């Protein structure tokens, strides 16, 4: 019996087999993409391979894992040729020497200029952008009679729609979530990093406790105190909205699929102006990058230019993941009011800072929002604390 078990284990071990590890090898393209993108890329890979006899392999990974794994895998020679990600990874990846510049040639004119700008770091283009995103406002037409034109009107409508005794809420954004709260702060002049004369960002000019930023958080504080804005996390907010228990939900186009599938009669608009000033969300731009450790840089570049930067591919990507394409010929073909709203929101938005110092910002910022939401600190004091923490961290690293 024992011997049999041992033999079985041995056989099983041998049967484990060797599935070769994936790495960039000359003549074969390897792409790292997250779940949604990999669906489209797998089809493209098949056509590309059939046409040119060049194998293209798509490795599906978690979105954030793509960036984290690249840091270890690429220098070890185990990285991909092409990867899909967000423009705010640029600072870290470029500083680490992991990305290859991209040349779009004549096709550059076919891309949204702000999207190209977002993918430019230190004056060099590192990505082929394909979609932009920015948060806006969902509203449930069953609970709200009309789309508000101003933020103040939105609050009135939210107040009217809310009924706490029935578990119905008026207006929600995830708390604490700096990304979703930023439009309130930016509307009145708040910012994260100020510009340098060269057009980059100055990591020591932190605008999170400027007058405008404080005014935004004071508004946030007041709405919570008055009971208009409940303190919810993302999952709860989303759950309430799709179960008809929330009138306004402040979030981005990634929620469209969920909201549509839930059969909600909804509208999606840019966050309306606050005090007459546009509420400027962070703009994120998704795109394709080439690893500097790729053994197929020219091939990868040609693949992107000839196969990705086409109306057909861009529309396919759009179908699976509805965000406005950054490729103008594809954008023109889309007739979707939601996408127009996202594009409008992005048009007044501010690109998410891509410098590596952004890593020092999130926690301190989010802690400040928590303390304000829990009524433990006044907005000014909380933001001053946060900025002092951020500055100390960044200064310590710059002095090295």
């Amino acid at each position: 019996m024992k011997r049999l078990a041992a033999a079985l284990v041995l056989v099983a071990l041998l049967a484990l087999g060797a599935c070769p590890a994936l790495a960039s090898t000359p003549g074969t393209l390897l792409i790292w993409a997250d779940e949604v993108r990999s669906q489209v890329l797998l089809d493209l890979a098949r056509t590309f391979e059939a046409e040119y006899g060049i194998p293209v392999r798509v490795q599906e990974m978690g979105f954030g894992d793509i960036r984290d794994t690249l840091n270890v895998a690429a220098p070890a020679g185990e990285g991909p040729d092409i990867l899909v990600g967000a423009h705010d990874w640029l600072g870290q990846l470029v500083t680490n020497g992991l990305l290859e510049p991209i040349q779009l040639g004549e096709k550059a004119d076919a891309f949204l200029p702000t999207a190209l700008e977002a993918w430019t770091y230190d004056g060099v283009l590192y990505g082929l952008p394909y979609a932009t995103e920015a948060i806006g406002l969902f509203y449930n037409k069953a609970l709200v009679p009309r789309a508000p034109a101003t933020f103040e009107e939105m609050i009135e409508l939210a107040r009217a729609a809310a009924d706490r005794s029935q578990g119905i809420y008026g207006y929600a954004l995830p708390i604490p979530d700096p990304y979703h709260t930023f439009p309130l702060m930016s509307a009145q002049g708040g910012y994260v990093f100020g510009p340098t004369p060269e057009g980059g960002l100055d990591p020591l000019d932190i605008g999170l406790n400027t007058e405008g930023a404080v005014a935004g958080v004071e508004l946030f504080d007041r709405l919570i105190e008055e009971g208009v804005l409940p303190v919810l996390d993302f999952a709860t907010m989303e759950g309430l909205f799709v179960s008809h228990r929330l009138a306004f939900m402040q979030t981005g186009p990634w929620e469209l699929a969920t909201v549509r599938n839930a059969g909600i009669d909804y509208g999606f608009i840019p966050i309306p102006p606050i005090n007459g000033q546009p509420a400027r969300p962070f703009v994120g731009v998704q795109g394709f990058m080439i690893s500097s450790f790729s053994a197929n840089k020219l091939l990868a570049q040609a693949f992107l230019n000839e196969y990705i930067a086409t109306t057909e591919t861009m529309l396919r990507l759009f179908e699976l993941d509805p965000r406005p394409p950054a490729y103008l010929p594809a954008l023109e073909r889309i007739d979707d009011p939601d996408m127009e709203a996202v594009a409008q929101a992005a048009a007044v938005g501010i690109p998410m800072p891509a410098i590596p110092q952004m890593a020092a910002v999130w926690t301190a910022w989010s802690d400040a929002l928590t303390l304000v939401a829990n009524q433990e600190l006044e907005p000014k004091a909380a933001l001053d604390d946060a900025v002092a923490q951020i500055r100390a961290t960044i200064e310590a690293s710059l002095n090295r």
Partner: protein
Amino acid sequence: MFVTQPARPGPRTAPGGRTRPWRWAVVALIDGLALWAALWLASTGAWLLLIILVAGAIGINVAFLSERAYPLRYLLPGLFFMFMMVVYPIVYTVYVAFTDYGTGHILTKAQAIRQFESRLYEPPGAPRFPFTAFQNDGGDLRFLIPWEDGRWILSEGDQFQPVDRDDPALIDADGDGVVDGLAGGYRALPTLGLMRHLHELQERVFHYDGVELRLASLTQFARLSPRYRYDPAADQLVDLETGTVYRPVNGYFTSEAGERLTPGFRSLVGWRNFTALLTNPRISGPFFRVFVWTFVWAFLSVASTFGLGFGLSLVLNDPRLPFRRVYRSLLILPYAFPAFISALIWRGLLNTEVGVINQVLRAVGLGGVPWLTDPLWAKVAVLLVNLWLGFPYMMLVTTGALQSIPDELYEAAYCDGATSWQQLRHITLPLLMVSVAPLLISSFAFNFNNFNVIYLVTQGRPPIPGAGTPAGATDILISYTYRLAFEGGSGTDYGLASAVAVVIFILIGTISYVNFRMTGVLERVGEHV
């Protein structure tokens, strides 16, 4: 520690201690194989594996040739994997603690140099050259370029030569004025046809008239030449475009004027990470508070999981109780879910507004509890989640250990009229502790470093007002210090994170050693043979 004469007779060495001849043969054979493999590994440059191989071979030799090392024969298999997969990573981490490995310093110096040397430079304003590619049946490629001066040039190998427009080598079969073939069976390739040759072409350098030409894209050649050259003798990098010289300083190639080239590379920085850790006001400030909570957390985690787990296994150890197997199977269930999934589920349950727990509390007339936002309740919440995650482990372990307690002891105690409590107190617990105490100490150490539960449930929050540092109410030492390392001013700092790991290891190692001494576990190791 050096025991030559055991207290009792026992099989401490091999019977007779005779070295059998076949053992020599086997060891010799293994050594021969190892030598052959070592030479091969050395030739491929796999030094790490070579070291592991040599260490393993020495271990086998010692274990099988020395009778003194007889016990090593039993330990060797486990030790081999432990050294390879646990000890080596620790050594690596200690090494990283003395480097600046992190954002901006990910590459080794050699990798950085290779990257700089592969960077190409195109003179500003230099034209790019569209071309036509031709291929024959043998797969050979030639390129035809209209050159700047109006002439045409044609490649032969890596060399371009001028060619007349009416050269008979250029064939225009359909007479449309476009060259569509070359003598020798070459036919023009469509633009995209070049796709499958790109990976070969990207490494090739072509020459014409003293100019270096490289393929820049599917459709263009360009005057591209290397931007940097590394001089190993002087250990410096020269910018061939401007002539600037860069020398390695603090993990960057730096010019005289202080300009740094990106990317930087990994370099040794001595004790810098440790001094940064120990002198950082952001750490020393909240250190005491975080440290105390870390202790409380680890202690209460062990106490609660052991209390519940042991209590249940005691009750379930009673053979008179019906449905024991059913209970045991149900109680083990929390353990069957991967911890990260459970933690996320608990986050949902503890949600203040819509979480099930608060719904139940409200339904029975108690108010909702601010589980994740109130400092005290958040602590209760993480302890509760950890209890759920951890008690089945203790239940399993104590169930196993209870089996080893001889029934005779209870029989004797029973005859002497001892109560159940006295039996538990004087027989069960002391005997159980012999094998379980080390586990409790190691469980303490595990929870001391239990980053996952804290991070997945509260992320160390809620924040403490006016703390001036980003320490949260449920932050334990490791979650707090790792945050400093991974959310640093320049991104991720693996060097600092490794220093954190080393310091915490020293701390917890010392605490555990003291624990071992205090509980006398190590001393008892000797008795029970």
